[in-house]
Protein backbone atom coordinates (compact mmCIF):
# COMPACT_ATOMS: atom_id res chain seq x y z
CA UNK A 1 0.00 0.00 0.00
CA UNK A 2 1.42 3.46 -0.87
CA UNK A 3 1.15 6.34 1.64
CA UNK A 4 -2.33 7.65 2.30
CA UNK A 5 -2.55 11.07 0.65
CA UNK A 6 -2.93 14.16 2.84
CA UNK A 7 -4.26 17.31 1.20
CA UNK A 8 -3.50 20.64 2.92
CA UNK A 9 -6.29 22.13 5.04
CA UNK A 10 -8.25 25.08 3.64
CA UNK A 11 -6.67 28.25 5.08
CA UNK A 12 -9.86 29.38 6.82
CA UNK A 13 -12.15 28.18 9.57
CA UNK A 14 -15.24 26.75 7.94
CA UNK A 15 -18.70 27.14 9.47
CA UNK A 16 -20.24 23.67 9.31
CA UNK A 17 -23.76 22.61 10.21
CA UNK A 18 -24.43 19.98 12.83
CA UNK A 19 -26.52 17.05 11.60
CA UNK A 20 -26.84 15.43 14.99
CA UNK A 21 -25.19 14.27 18.17
CA UNK A 22 -25.81 10.58 18.85
CA UNK A 23 -25.31 8.86 22.18
CA UNK A 24 -22.81 6.01 22.20
CA UNK A 25 -22.67 4.80 25.79
CA UNK A 26 -20.54 7.28 27.72
CA UNK A 27 -19.54 8.99 24.47
CA UNK A 28 -21.25 11.12 21.85
CA UNK A 29 -20.86 11.00 18.09
CA UNK A 30 -21.01 14.46 16.53
CA UNK A 31 -22.08 14.37 12.87
CA UNK A 32 -21.58 17.49 10.73
CA UNK A 33 -22.39 18.28 7.11
CA UNK A 34 -19.02 18.64 5.46
CA UNK A 35 -18.70 18.57 1.71
CA UNK A 36 -15.60 20.60 0.81
CA UNK A 37 -13.19 19.20 3.38
CA UNK A 38 -10.42 17.40 1.57
CA UNK A 39 -10.36 13.64 2.26
CA UNK A 40 -8.39 13.37 5.53
CA UNK A 41 -5.52 11.00 6.13
CA UNK A 42 -6.52 8.56 8.88
CA UNK A 43 -5.24 10.00 12.16
CA UNK A 44 -5.60 13.64 11.17
CA UNK A 45 -7.64 15.96 13.37
CA UNK A 46 -9.64 19.20 13.26
CA UNK A 47 -9.85 22.18 15.61
CA UNK A 48 -13.49 22.63 16.58
CA UNK A 49 -15.44 25.38 18.33
CA UNK A 50 -19.18 25.92 18.63
CA UNK A 51 -20.28 28.97 16.62
CA UNK A 52 -22.56 30.06 19.48
CA UNK A 53 -21.73 30.22 23.19
CA UNK A 54 -18.10 29.24 22.91
CA UNK A 55 -16.92 31.00 26.05
CA UNK A 56 -19.00 32.30 28.91
CA UNK A 57 -18.94 28.99 30.75
CA UNK A 58 -17.46 28.61 34.22
CA UNK A 59 -14.39 30.86 34.32
CA UNK A 60 -15.43 32.15 30.87
CA UNK A 61 -14.16 28.96 29.24
CA UNK A 62 -13.95 27.46 26.65
CA UNK A 63 -11.94 30.13 24.87
CA UNK A 64 -9.67 28.34 22.42
CA UNK A 65 -10.86 25.76 19.88
CA UNK A 66 -10.41 22.08 20.79
CA UNK A 67 -8.70 19.30 18.85
CA UNK A 68 -10.65 16.20 17.77
CA UNK A 69 -9.65 13.26 15.64
CA UNK A 70 -11.68 12.84 12.50
CA UNK A 71 -13.32 9.57 13.49
CA UNK A 72 -15.06 8.86 10.22
CA UNK A 73 -15.87 10.34 6.82
CA UNK A 74 -19.10 9.56 4.99
CA UNK A 75 -20.15 11.23 1.75
CA UNK A 76 -20.68 14.86 2.73
CA UNK A 77 -20.28 14.12 6.45
CA UNK A 78 -17.56 14.15 9.08
CA UNK A 79 -17.97 12.33 12.40
CA UNK A 80 -16.25 13.06 15.70
CA UNK A 81 -16.28 11.01 18.87
CA UNK A 82 -16.68 13.15 22.00
CA UNK A 83 -16.07 12.50 25.66
CA UNK A 84 -17.29 15.18 28.06
CA UNK A 85 -14.25 15.95 30.19
CA UNK A 86 -14.59 19.73 30.55
CA UNK A 87 -16.24 22.92 29.29
CA UNK A 88 -15.26 22.55 25.63
CA UNK A 89 -16.30 18.95 25.14
CA UNK A 90 -19.41 19.61 27.24
CA UNK A 91 -20.46 22.46 24.97
CA UNK A 92 -19.89 20.34 21.86
CA UNK A 93 -21.93 17.50 23.37
CA UNK A 94 -24.80 20.00 23.80
CA UNK A 95 -24.91 20.84 20.08
CA UNK A 96 -28.14 20.09 18.27
CA UNK A 97 -29.09 19.58 14.63
CA UNK A 98 -28.76 22.85 12.74
CA UNK A 99 -26.25 24.44 15.12
CA UNK A 100 -23.09 25.95 13.68
CA UNK A 101 -19.61 24.54 14.24
CA UNK A 102 -16.32 26.23 13.37
CA UNK A 103 -13.89 23.68 11.99
CA UNK A 104 -10.28 24.04 10.89
CA UNK A 105 -8.64 21.05 9.26
CA UNK A 106 -7.79 18.35 8.42
CA UNK A 107 -4.59 18.99 10.33
CA UNK A 108 -1.46 17.11 11.29
CA UNK A 109 0.37 14.01 10.17
CA UNK A 110 -1.76 10.85 10.18
CA UNK A 111 -1.06 7.12 10.01
CA UNK A 112 0.89 5.44 7.24
CA UNK A 113 0.00 2.03 5.79
CA UNK A 114 1.63 -1.10 7.20
CA UNK A 115 4.80 -2.45 5.60
CA UNK A 116 4.17 -5.17 2.97
CA UNK A 117 2.95 -8.51 4.35
CA UNK A 118 2.38 -7.07 7.84
CA UNK A 119 -0.97 -7.40 9.57
CA UNK A 120 -2.39 -4.32 11.27
CA UNK A 121 -3.18 -4.37 14.98
CA UNK A 122 -5.31 -1.42 16.13
CA UNK A 123 -4.98 -0.74 19.84
CA UNK A 124 -7.38 1.86 21.22
CA UNK A 125 -8.06 3.02 24.76
CA UNK A 126 -11.09 5.10 25.76
CA UNK A 127 -11.90 8.00 23.48
CA UNK A 128 -8.60 7.22 21.76
CA UNK A 129 -10.46 4.71 19.59
CA UNK A 130 -11.68 7.62 17.41
CA UNK A 131 -8.83 7.80 14.89
CA UNK A 132 -8.74 3.98 14.67
CA UNK A 133 -12.26 3.91 13.21
CA UNK A 134 -11.32 5.88 10.10
CA UNK A 135 -8.06 3.90 10.01
CA UNK A 136 -9.99 0.65 9.89
CA UNK A 137 -12.03 2.04 6.98
CA UNK A 138 -8.82 2.93 5.11
CA UNK A 139 -7.14 -0.40 5.78
CA UNK A 140 -10.18 -2.34 4.62
CA UNK A 141 -10.58 -0.17 1.53
CA UNK A 142 -7.05 -1.28 0.72
CA UNK A 143 -8.29 -4.91 0.92
CA UNK A 144 -5.26 -7.12 1.39
CA UNK A 145 -4.37 -6.18 5.00
CA UNK A 146 -5.48 -8.42 7.85
CA UNK A 147 -6.82 -6.14 10.60
CA UNK A 148 -7.03 -6.99 14.32
CA UNK A 149 -8.83 -4.55 16.65
CA UNK A 150 -8.15 -4.42 20.40
CA UNK A 151 -10.05 -1.85 22.44
CA UNK A 152 -9.86 -1.10 26.15
CA UNK A 153 -12.25 0.88 28.34
CA UNK A 154 -12.69 1.83 31.96
CA UNK A 155 -16.23 0.47 32.24
CA UNK A 156 -19.25 -0.89 30.41
CA UNK A 157 -20.72 2.51 29.50
CA UNK A 158 -17.49 3.41 27.76
CA UNK A 159 -17.13 -0.04 26.22
CA UNK A 160 -20.24 0.77 24.15
CA UNK A 161 -17.87 2.95 22.14
CA UNK A 162 -16.35 -0.21 20.69
CA UNK A 163 -19.23 -0.42 18.21
CA UNK A 164 -17.54 2.47 16.35
CA UNK A 165 -15.23 -0.20 14.93
CA UNK A 166 -16.11 -3.78 14.05
CA UNK A 167 -14.69 -7.15 15.00
CA UNK A 168 -13.10 -5.71 18.11
CA UNK A 169 -11.79 -7.68 21.08
CA UNK A 170 -12.67 -5.64 24.17
CA UNK A 171 -11.04 -5.35 27.57
CA UNK A 172 -12.44 -3.39 30.53
CA UNK A 173 -10.80 -2.36 33.78
CA UNK A 174 -13.89 -3.36 35.76
CA UNK A 175 -14.46 -6.58 33.80
CA UNK A 176 -18.03 -5.58 32.94
CA UNK A 177 -17.39 -6.36 29.27
CA UNK A 178 -14.90 -8.66 27.56
CA UNK A 179 -11.47 -9.37 29.00
CA UNK A 180 -11.14 -8.25 32.63
CA UNK A 181 -7.80 -6.52 32.59
CA UNK A 182 -5.35 -4.58 30.52
CA UNK A 183 -5.44 -4.05 26.80
CA UNK A 184 -1.74 -4.82 26.65
CA UNK A 185 -2.49 -8.35 27.83
CA UNK A 186 -4.57 -8.82 24.66
CA UNK A 187 -1.83 -7.20 22.57
CA UNK A 188 0.79 -9.43 24.08
CA UNK A 189 -1.24 -12.53 23.11
CA UNK A 190 -1.66 -11.24 19.56
CA UNK A 191 2.02 -10.50 19.13
CA UNK A 192 2.86 -13.90 20.53
CA UNK A 193 0.53 -15.47 17.94
CA UNK A 194 2.11 -13.54 15.05
CA UNK A 195 4.50 -10.66 15.55
CA UNK A 196 4.76 -9.68 11.86
CA UNK A 197 2.52 -6.76 12.55
CA UNK A 198 2.23 -2.99 12.37
CA UNK A 199 0.71 -1.67 15.59
CA UNK A 200 -1.45 1.45 15.56
CA UNK A 201 -2.28 2.84 19.00
CA UNK A 202 -4.20 5.74 20.49
CA UNK A 203 -5.31 6.22 24.08
CA UNK A 204 -4.27 7.34 27.54
CA UNK A 205 -0.58 8.03 28.10
CA UNK A 206 0.07 5.02 30.37
CA UNK A 207 -1.49 2.69 27.80
CA UNK A 208 0.48 4.24 24.94
CA UNK A 209 3.66 3.91 26.96
CA UNK A 210 2.94 0.24 27.70
CA UNK A 211 2.27 -0.40 24.01
CA UNK A 212 5.40 1.47 23.01
CA UNK A 213 7.55 -0.45 25.47
CA UNK A 214 6.11 -3.83 24.44
CA UNK A 215 6.52 -3.14 20.73
CA UNK A 216 10.03 -1.81 21.17
CA UNK A 217 11.24 -4.85 23.10
CA UNK A 218 9.57 -7.21 20.61
CA UNK A 219 10.84 -5.13 17.74
CA UNK A 220 7.36 -4.52 16.31
CA UNK A 221 6.78 -1.22 14.46
CA UNK A 222 4.22 0.97 16.21
CA UNK A 223 2.56 4.24 15.21
CA UNK A 224 1.22 6.15 18.20
CA UNK A 225 -1.45 8.86 17.91
CA UNK A 226 -0.57 11.30 20.69
CA UNK A 227 -2.57 14.05 22.33
CA UNK A 228 -1.48 17.29 23.95
CA UNK A 229 -3.07 20.52 25.07
CA UNK A 230 -3.30 22.67 21.95
CA UNK A 231 -4.01 26.32 21.33
CA UNK A 232 -3.78 26.49 17.55
CA UNK A 233 -3.37 23.08 15.86
CA UNK A 234 -1.19 24.39 13.01
CA UNK A 235 2.24 24.93 14.52
CA UNK A 236 1.84 28.54 15.61
CA UNK A 237 1.91 28.37 19.41
CA UNK A 238 4.44 25.64 20.22
CA UNK A 239 2.12 24.66 23.06
CA UNK A 240 1.71 20.99 22.14
CA UNK A 241 5.32 19.92 22.55
CA UNK A 242 6.17 16.39 23.72
CA UNK A 243 9.72 15.18 24.41
CA UNK A 244 11.37 13.23 21.59
CA UNK A 245 14.13 10.65 21.62
CA UNK A 246 17.55 12.23 21.98
CA UNK A 247 16.31 15.46 23.55
CA UNK A 248 14.17 18.31 22.38
CA UNK A 249 10.49 18.25 21.55
CA UNK A 250 8.13 17.59 18.67
CA UNK A 251 4.90 19.52 18.10
CA UNK A 252 2.03 17.06 18.21
CA UNK A 253 -0.04 19.22 15.86
CA UNK A 254 2.41 19.38 12.95
CA UNK A 255 4.97 16.61 13.60
CA UNK A 256 2.11 14.37 14.80
CA UNK A 257 -0.38 13.55 16.15
CA UNK A 258 0.85 10.21 14.77
CA UNK A 259 4.45 9.60 15.82
CA UNK A 260 6.46 6.48 15.23
CA UNK A 261 7.33 4.76 18.50
CA UNK A 262 10.97 4.81 17.44
CA UNK A 263 10.97 8.63 17.66
CA UNK A 264 10.11 8.57 21.36
CA UNK A 265 11.98 7.52 24.46
CA UNK A 266 8.68 7.27 26.26
CA UNK A 267 5.15 8.60 26.20
CA UNK A 268 5.00 11.34 28.82
CA UNK A 269 2.12 11.98 31.23
CA UNK A 270 0.60 14.80 29.19
CA UNK A 271 0.80 13.16 25.77
CA UNK A 272 -2.25 10.88 25.92
CA UNK A 273 -6.03 10.91 25.75
CA UNK A 274 -8.44 11.12 28.68
CA UNK A 275 -8.72 7.59 30.13
Amino acid at each position, binding site marked *: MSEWAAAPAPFVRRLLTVLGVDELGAYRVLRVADVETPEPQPGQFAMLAAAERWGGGEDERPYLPRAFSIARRRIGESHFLLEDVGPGTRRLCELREGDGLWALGPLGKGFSPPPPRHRAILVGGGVGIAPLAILQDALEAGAETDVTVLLGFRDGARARGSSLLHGAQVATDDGSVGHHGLLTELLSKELYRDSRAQVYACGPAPMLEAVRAMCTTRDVPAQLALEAGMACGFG*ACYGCAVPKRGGGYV*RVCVDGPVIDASELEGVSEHAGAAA
Partner: protein
Amino acid sequence: MSPPAARPGADAAVAIEFCGLTLAHPVINGSGTFDAIAARRAFGAALVRDFPFAAFVSKTITLAPRAGNPAPRLWETAGGLINSIGLPNKGLDGYLAEDLPQLAELLGARADAAEGPVPLITNVMGSSAQEFSALVTACDERAEIAAIELNVSCPNVATGLDIGADPRQLAQVVGACRTATRKPLIVKLTPNTADVPACALAAQEGGADAVSLINTLRAMALAPGAGGERGPWLGGGTGGLSGPAIRAVALAQVSAVAARVAIPVVGMGGVQRVAHARDLLDAGATLVAVGTETFRDPVAAMRIAEDLRAQS
Protein backbone atom coordinates in the same frame (compact mmCIF):
# COMPACT_ATOMS: atom_id res chain seq x y z
CA MET B 1 -17.01 35.82 10.60
CA SER B 2 -17.55 34.35 7.14
CA PRO B 3 -14.54 33.31 5.07
CA PRO B 4 -12.73 36.50 3.97
CA ALA B 5 -12.23 37.48 0.34
CA ALA B 6 -8.75 37.90 -1.14
CA ARG B 7 -6.37 39.74 1.20
CA PRO B 8 -6.37 43.52 0.95
CA GLY B 9 -3.86 44.86 -1.55
CA ALA B 10 -1.67 47.91 -0.94
CA ASP B 11 -4.76 50.07 -0.86
CA ALA B 12 -4.21 53.79 -0.35
CA ALA B 13 -6.81 53.76 2.39
CA VAL B 14 -4.81 51.33 4.53
CA ALA B 15 -1.32 51.03 3.03
CA ILE B 16 1.08 52.28 5.63
CA GLU B 17 4.64 53.55 5.97
CA PHE B 18 6.52 52.05 8.89
CA CYS B 19 10.20 52.70 9.55
CA GLY B 20 10.79 53.07 5.81
CA LEU B 21 8.89 49.90 4.95
CA THR B 22 5.65 50.07 2.97
CA LEU B 23 3.04 47.72 4.36
CA ALA B 24 -0.16 46.68 2.59
CA HIS B 25 -2.14 47.32 5.78
CA PRO B 26 -1.43 48.03 9.46
CA VAL B 27 -1.87 44.50 10.84
CA ILE B 28 1.09 42.22 11.59
CA ASN B 29 1.60 39.21 13.88
CA GLY B 30 2.92 39.16 17.40
CA SER B 31 6.26 37.39 17.66
CA GLY B 32 5.91 33.73 18.56
CA THR B 33 2.27 33.49 17.61
CA PHE B 34 2.64 32.40 13.98
CA ASP B 35 5.10 29.99 12.36
CA ALA B 36 4.90 30.66 8.62
CA ILE B 37 6.91 27.55 7.77
CA ALA B 38 4.72 25.22 9.82
CA ALA B 39 1.58 26.99 8.57
CA ARG B 40 2.66 26.33 4.99
CA ARG B 41 2.89 22.63 5.82
CA ALA B 42 -0.65 22.79 7.21
CA PHE B 43 -2.29 25.07 4.64
CA GLY B 44 -0.08 24.75 1.58
CA ALA B 45 -0.11 27.33 -1.21
CA ALA B 46 -3.12 29.18 0.22
CA LEU B 47 -0.97 30.42 3.11
CA VAL B 48 1.45 31.97 0.65
CA ARG B 49 -1.27 33.35 -1.61
CA ASP B 50 -3.37 34.85 1.19
CA PHE B 51 -0.63 35.69 3.67
CA PRO B 52 -2.58 37.39 6.46
CA PHE B 53 0.05 39.74 7.86
CA ALA B 54 1.41 42.94 6.32
CA ALA B 55 4.81 42.02 7.76
CA PHE B 56 5.92 38.78 9.33
CA VAL B 57 7.58 38.78 12.73
CA SER B 58 9.63 35.66 13.52
CA LYS B 59 9.52 34.02 16.89
CA THR B 60 12.32 35.02 19.23
CA ILE B 61 15.73 33.79 18.11
CA THR B 62 18.59 33.35 20.60
CA LEU B 63 22.31 32.79 20.02
CA ALA B 64 22.25 29.17 21.18
CA PRO B 65 19.48 26.72 20.26
CA ARG B 66 16.74 26.29 22.90
CA ALA B 67 14.45 23.28 23.31
CA GLY B 68 11.84 25.23 25.24
CA ASN B 69 10.01 24.36 28.45
CA PRO B 70 8.60 20.96 29.49
CA ALA B 71 4.89 20.25 29.03
CA PRO B 72 2.34 21.41 29.82
CA ARG B 73 2.95 24.75 28.18
CA LEU B 74 -0.58 26.14 28.03
CA TRP B 75 -3.36 27.04 30.45
CA GLU B 76 -6.67 28.59 29.46
CA THR B 77 -7.93 31.20 31.89
CA ALA B 78 -10.74 33.74 32.11
CA GLY B 79 -10.56 35.63 28.83
CA GLY B 80 -7.04 34.58 28.13
CA LEU B 81 -4.26 32.10 27.63
CA ILE B 82 -1.22 31.56 29.82
CA ASN B 83 1.76 30.21 27.94
CA SER B 84 5.09 28.95 29.11
CA ILE B 85 6.69 27.99 25.84
CA GLY B 86 10.25 28.89 26.76
CA LEU B 87 11.36 30.38 23.45
CA PRO B 88 12.22 27.17 21.61
CA ASN B 89 14.32 27.98 18.54
CA LYS B 90 17.16 26.59 16.43
CA GLY B 91 19.55 29.26 17.58
CA LEU B 92 20.94 32.01 15.39
CA ASP B 93 22.94 29.80 13.05
CA GLY B 94 20.14 27.30 12.56
CA TYR B 95 17.69 30.11 11.90
CA LEU B 96 19.93 31.84 9.36
CA ALA B 97 20.89 28.61 7.62
CA GLU B 98 17.58 26.70 7.60
CA ASP B 99 14.64 29.02 8.25
CA LEU B 100 15.68 32.25 6.61
CA PRO B 101 15.88 30.92 3.03
CA GLN B 102 12.50 29.20 3.41
CA LEU B 103 10.95 32.34 4.89
CA ALA B 104 12.38 34.55 2.18
CA GLU B 105 10.99 32.27 -0.53
CA LEU B 106 7.62 31.99 1.21
CA LEU B 107 7.23 35.73 1.85
CA GLY B 108 8.42 36.58 -1.64
CA ALA B 109 5.95 34.29 -3.36
CA ARG B 110 2.84 36.26 -2.31
CA ALA B 111 -0.10 36.72 -4.63
CA ASP B 112 0.25 40.35 -5.60
CA ALA B 113 3.85 40.46 -6.78
CA ALA B 114 3.47 44.19 -7.41
CA GLU B 115 3.53 44.67 -3.66
CA GLY B 116 6.89 42.98 -3.40
CA PRO B 117 7.70 40.48 -0.67
CA VAL B 118 6.09 40.59 2.76
CA PRO B 119 8.75 42.27 4.93
CA LEU B 120 10.41 39.94 7.43
CA ILE B 121 11.02 41.23 10.94
CA THR B 122 13.36 39.00 12.92
CA ASN B 123 12.83 39.01 16.68
CA VAL B 124 15.95 38.33 18.77
CA MET B 125 16.78 38.04 22.45
CA GLY B 126 20.11 38.08 24.25
CA SER B 127 21.02 38.02 27.91
CA SER B 128 23.44 40.95 27.62
CA ALA B 129 24.25 43.92 25.39
CA GLN B 130 27.03 41.82 23.84
CA GLU B 131 24.69 38.96 22.96
CA PHE B 132 22.12 41.37 21.56
CA SER B 133 24.64 43.09 19.34
CA ALA B 134 26.03 39.76 18.14
CA LEU B 135 22.50 38.74 17.12
CA VAL B 136 21.84 42.08 15.44
CA THR B 137 25.18 42.08 13.64
CA ALA B 138 24.40 38.68 12.13
CA CYS B 139 20.91 39.78 11.07
CA ASP B 140 22.28 42.98 9.61
CA GLU B 141 24.23 41.00 7.03
CA ARG B 142 21.15 39.25 5.66
CA ALA B 143 19.18 41.07 2.97
CA GLU B 144 16.16 38.83 3.61
CA ILE B 145 15.66 40.57 6.96
CA ALA B 146 13.83 43.90 6.63
CA ALA B 147 13.84 44.89 10.30
CA ILE B 148 14.93 43.58 13.69
CA GLU B 149 12.80 43.40 16.84
CA LEU B 150 14.56 43.18 20.21
CA ASN B 151 12.76 41.09 22.81
CA VAL B 152 14.03 42.66 26.02
CA SER B 153 11.70 40.68 28.32
CA CYS B 154 14.64 38.53 29.27
CA PRO B 155 15.74 38.16 32.86
CA ASN B 156 19.00 39.86 33.76
CA VAL B 157 21.13 36.97 35.00
CA ALA B 158 22.27 39.06 37.98
CA THR B 159 19.01 40.70 39.15
CA GLY B 160 16.52 38.23 37.71
CA LEU B 161 14.51 41.22 36.50
CA ASP B 162 13.74 41.83 32.87
CA ILE B 163 16.50 43.83 31.17
CA GLY B 164 13.66 45.76 29.54
CA ALA B 165 12.32 46.82 32.93
CA ASP B 166 15.35 48.99 33.66
CA PRO B 167 15.61 52.10 31.46
CA ARG B 168 19.36 52.39 31.97
CA GLN B 169 20.18 48.81 30.93
CA LEU B 170 17.65 49.06 28.12
CA ALA B 171 19.27 52.19 26.64
CA GLN B 172 22.64 50.42 26.73
CA VAL B 173 21.33 47.32 24.99
CA VAL B 174 19.56 49.32 22.30
CA GLY B 175 22.59 51.56 21.85
CA ALA B 176 24.83 48.54 21.31
CA CYS B 177 22.40 47.17 18.73
CA ARG B 178 22.06 50.53 17.01
CA THR B 179 25.77 50.66 16.24
CA ALA B 180 25.47 47.16 14.74
CA THR B 181 22.82 47.86 12.10
CA ARG B 182 21.13 50.45 9.91
CA LYS B 183 18.06 48.26 9.57
CA PRO B 184 14.96 49.43 11.47
CA LEU B 185 15.19 48.43 15.13
CA ILE B 186 11.95 47.75 17.01
CA VAL B 187 12.11 47.32 20.77
CA LYS B 188 9.50 44.96 22.21
CA LEU B 189 8.89 46.43 25.66
CA THR B 190 8.02 44.42 28.76
CA PRO B 191 4.67 45.32 30.36
CA ASN B 192 5.72 43.95 33.75
CA THR B 193 7.19 47.15 35.13
CA ALA B 194 6.12 50.35 36.84
CA ASP B 195 7.05 52.92 34.21
CA VAL B 196 6.65 51.60 30.68
CA PRO B 197 6.81 55.07 29.05
CA ALA B 198 10.21 55.65 30.69
CA CYS B 199 11.42 52.39 29.15
CA ALA B 200 10.04 53.46 25.77
CA LEU B 201 11.91 56.76 26.03
CA ALA B 202 15.08 54.89 26.95
CA ALA B 203 14.65 52.72 23.84
CA GLN B 204 14.16 55.84 21.73
CA GLU B 205 17.26 57.47 23.20
CA GLY B 206 19.17 54.26 22.55
CA GLY B 207 18.30 54.67 18.88
CA ALA B 208 15.22 52.51 18.39
CA ASP B 209 13.15 53.24 15.28
CA ALA B 210 9.97 51.93 16.91
CA VAL B 211 8.66 50.25 20.04
CA SER B 212 6.18 47.40 20.25
CA LEU B 213 3.96 46.44 23.20
CA ILE B 214 2.55 44.73 25.12
CA ASN B 215 4.26 41.44 25.73
CA THR B 216 2.47 38.96 28.01
CA LEU B 217 1.69 39.69 31.67
CA ARG B 218 3.36 37.45 34.25
CA ALA B 219 0.75 34.95 35.41
CA MET B 220 0.38 31.41 36.70
CA ALA B 221 -1.97 28.50 37.28
CA LEU B 222 -1.90 25.71 39.85
CA ALA B 223 -2.24 22.08 38.86
CA PRO B 224 -5.63 20.53 39.65
CA GLY B 225 -5.54 18.72 43.00
CA ALA B 226 -5.85 19.54 46.67
CA GLY B 227 -3.73 20.83 49.51
CA GLY B 228 -0.40 22.55 49.86
CA GLU B 229 1.38 20.01 47.69
CA ARG B 230 -0.22 21.51 44.58
CA GLY B 231 2.49 22.63 42.22
CA PRO B 232 2.29 24.94 39.24
CA TRP B 233 0.43 23.55 36.21
CA LEU B 234 2.89 24.85 33.67
CA GLY B 235 6.11 22.95 33.13
CA GLY B 236 7.90 26.28 33.20
CA GLY B 237 6.37 27.28 36.55
CA THR B 238 4.98 30.72 35.70
CA GLY B 239 3.91 31.90 32.27
CA GLY B 240 2.66 34.87 30.31
CA LEU B 241 -0.96 35.96 30.01
CA SER B 242 -2.28 37.02 26.60
CA GLY B 243 -5.65 37.49 24.94
CA PRO B 244 -8.77 39.51 25.79
CA ALA B 245 -7.91 39.63 29.51
CA ILE B 246 -4.95 41.94 28.83
CA ARG B 247 -6.64 44.17 26.25
CA ALA B 248 -7.45 47.05 28.60
CA VAL B 249 -3.96 46.94 30.11
CA ALA B 250 -2.44 47.00 26.62
CA LEU B 251 -4.55 50.01 25.63
CA ALA B 252 -3.41 51.93 28.71
CA GLN B 253 0.25 51.17 28.09
CA VAL B 254 0.11 51.84 24.34
CA SER B 255 -1.65 55.13 24.92
CA ALA B 256 0.81 56.20 27.63
CA VAL B 257 3.81 55.27 25.48
CA ALA B 258 2.48 56.86 22.28
CA ALA B 259 1.94 60.09 24.20
CA ARG B 260 5.59 60.16 25.26
CA VAL B 261 7.69 58.93 22.31
CA ALA B 262 8.27 60.39 18.86
CA ILE B 263 8.90 57.04 17.16
CA PRO B 264 6.09 54.79 15.86
CA VAL B 265 4.40 52.32 18.17
CA VAL B 266 3.25 48.77 17.38
CA GLY B 267 0.28 48.05 19.64
CA MET B 268 -0.86 44.60 20.63
CA GLY B 269 -2.68 42.75 23.37
CA GLY B 270 -6.02 41.00 23.09
CA VAL B 271 -6.90 42.20 19.60
CA GLN B 272 -9.74 40.04 18.29
CA ARG B 273 -11.86 42.36 16.18
CA VAL B 274 -11.55 45.57 14.23
CA ALA B 275 -12.86 47.59 17.19
CA HIS B 276 -9.87 46.49 19.28
CA ALA B 277 -7.42 47.40 16.51
CA ARG B 278 -9.21 50.74 16.10
CA ASP B 279 -8.75 51.47 19.82
CA LEU B 280 -5.00 50.88 19.63
CA LEU B 281 -4.64 52.98 16.47
CA ASP B 282 -6.73 55.78 17.96
CA ALA B 283 -4.55 55.58 21.08
CA GLY B 284 -1.56 56.38 18.91
CA ALA B 285 -0.29 53.08 17.50
CA THR B 286 0.94 53.01 13.89
CA LEU B 287 0.56 49.25 13.52
CA VAL B 288 -1.34 46.63 15.48
CA ALA B 289 -0.26 43.04 15.98
CA VAL B 290 -2.51 40.04 16.43
CA GLY B 291 -1.29 37.15 18.55
CA THR B 292 -3.53 34.78 20.45
CA GLU B 293 -6.59 35.44 18.27
CA THR B 294 -4.72 33.85 15.37
CA PHE B 295 -4.84 30.57 17.31
CA ARG B 296 -8.63 30.75 17.23
CA ASP B 297 -8.84 31.94 13.66
CA PRO B 298 -5.73 31.72 11.46
CA VAL B 299 -6.97 34.53 9.21
CA ALA B 300 -8.02 36.86 12.03
CA ALA B 301 -5.44 39.46 10.98
CA MET B 302 -6.76 39.46 7.42
CA ARG B 303 -10.31 39.86 8.67
CA ILE B 304 -9.29 42.81 10.84
CA ALA B 305 -7.28 44.45 8.04
CA GLU B 306 -10.28 44.22 5.73
CA ASP B 307 -12.64 45.63 8.32
CA LEU B 308 -10.21 48.50 8.90
CA ARG B 309 -10.16 49.19 5.18
CA ALA B 310 -13.94 49.05 5.03
CA GLN B 311 -14.12 51.67 7.80
CA SER B 312 -11.59 54.07 6.33
